[in-house]
């Protein structure tokens, strides 16, 4: 109890301190419009063969705390209020303090979920949501067709436990693929993204479940629509200093446009347009426009400012070889069933 009081006091202090701290930057923000214009004018260095240099490690770690969809109360506001930003800063400072505690308290309680050291943390951000278009920052409505499909999928699962077979797990849990957007949307850990360029090609690597997209820049067309894959077929070109990637030929009804490939699955006909623009030596603006008229009533766009972090190398992510979790979850479900059967038999 005493610890709780202490924690409350610490939180209150942190809030007060960060409120005081943000006063100065807030005044500075009034002059940010020219700074933005300056950003757009940034010219990235060129590679020996003339392409803009986008190479490097661009993890999404800073965006972990930014919600995908905007709080409806924020309306069309793209940045949080100074008070909200102070809260985000205070939370980050609290997390940093908690992380530094070196000893486990004698009476500390544990839960089934993993402890804090499993999580990566980034710098607090001002943006209100990752979705920026429609202007309300919300994912558009599903089409009638998509709603029907979702209802059918739900019905098919009726009376079917969540762990009856490996196929009940997500493609992520099965170490197959997080899909084209699930591979880059920020999650609790392993948010590494790397760009490597060569003449005529760009390669983008994603850390978790380790996808690599190799993108030809030679103007060649997408293959026949009969050829489909989880990550689709990506083709790129330059518009000024912006790398524009159009991806088609997806396997439909597999991954969604959500964290780790969750959310409503997109269709095979989705056209994804991604733009990579270096806005400063250490900043990249990344946008992705999802155009899938079979699934959403209108196209929508996600925007993420990514910060260069040379200290965030991608480590190999060989998932399947050690995926004990699959076995453990299925075994857990069988144990639950056996216990339920035994309880039933006991009552008779």
């Amino acid at each position, binding site marked *: 109890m005493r610890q709780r009081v202490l924690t409350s006091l610490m939180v209150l202090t942190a809030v007060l301190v960060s409120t005081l701290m943000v006063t100065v930057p807030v005044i500075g923000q009034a002059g940010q419009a020219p700074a933005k214009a300056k950003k757009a004018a940034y010219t990235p260095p060129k590679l020996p063969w003339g392409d803009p240099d986008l190479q490097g490690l661009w*993890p999404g*770690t800073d965006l972990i705390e930014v919600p995908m969809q905007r709080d409806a109360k924020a309306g069309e506001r793209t940045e949080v209020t100074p008070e909200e930003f102070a809260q985000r*800063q205070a939370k*980050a*400072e609290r*997390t*940093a303090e*908690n*992380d*530094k*505690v*070196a*000893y*486990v308290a*004698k009476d*500390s309680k*544990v*839960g*089934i*979920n*993993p*402890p*804090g*050291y*499993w*999580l*990566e*943390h*980034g*710098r*607090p951000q001002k943006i209100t949501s990752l979705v920026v278009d429609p202007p309300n920052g919300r994912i558009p409505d599903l089409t009638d067709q998509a709603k029907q499909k979702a209802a059918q999928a739900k019905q098919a699962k009726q009376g079917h436990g969540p762990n009856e077979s490996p196929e009940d797990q997500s493609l*992520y*849990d099965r*170490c197959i693929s997080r899909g084209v957007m699930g591979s880059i949307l920020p*999650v*609790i*850990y*392993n948010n590494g993204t790397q760009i490597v360029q060569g003449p005529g090609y760009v390669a983008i690597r994603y850390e978790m479940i380790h996808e690599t997209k190799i993108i030809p820049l030679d103007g060649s067309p997408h293959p026949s629509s009969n050829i489909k894959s989880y990550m689709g077929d990506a083709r790129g070109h330059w518009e000024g200093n912006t790398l524009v990637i159009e991806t088609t030929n997806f396997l439909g009804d597999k991954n969604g446009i959500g*964290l780790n490939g*969750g959310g409503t699955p997109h269709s095979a006909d989705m056209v994804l347009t991604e733009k990579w623009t270096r806005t400063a030596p250490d900043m990249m603006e990344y946008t992705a426009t999802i155009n899938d008229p079979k699934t959403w009533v209108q196209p929508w766009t996600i925007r993420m400012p990514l910060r260069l*972090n*040379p*200290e*965030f190398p991608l*480590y190999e992510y*060989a*998932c399947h*070889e*050690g*995926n*004990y*979790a*699959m076995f*453990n*979850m299925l*075994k*857990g*479900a*069988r*144990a639950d069933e056996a216990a339920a059967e035994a309880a039933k038999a006991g009552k008779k």
Partner: protein
Amino acid sequence: MRRIPSVAAAAVGLLLNVSLAVSPAWAHHAFAAEYDGKKQVHLEGVVTQMEWINPHTWIHIDVTEPDGKVTSWMVEGGSPNILLRRGFNKGSLEKGQKIAVDGFQAKDGSNRANGSNITYPDGKKLFLGSSGTGAPADPGPGK
């Protein structure tokens, strides 16, 4: 070197879980599907192996029961990539190192546990959290 399942502690653990459950997408997979929230365990043992595998690491320990019997346990740890970024490496946890684990046992009753708290015998955390990516050059949040 003992194993103490505690019903009271498990009840508290369950309460804590309820509050944690609101956190989005906690980990790679559903921990509640793997572990039994009613079987809290305290394990003190000696490391025999650490498996650096994805999606999550596993620490193997030998636990000596009060009657002298040795049982082997597997404890689920963090993702290898995040541990590496924290500066932890394959030489960080040697065979023979004594550790204590507070967690919950697998639902099927086998000797597997989640490692909610993994500490050295003096209570020092085996894996510390990090204010940033764990990289030395990262100034952490708010800087």
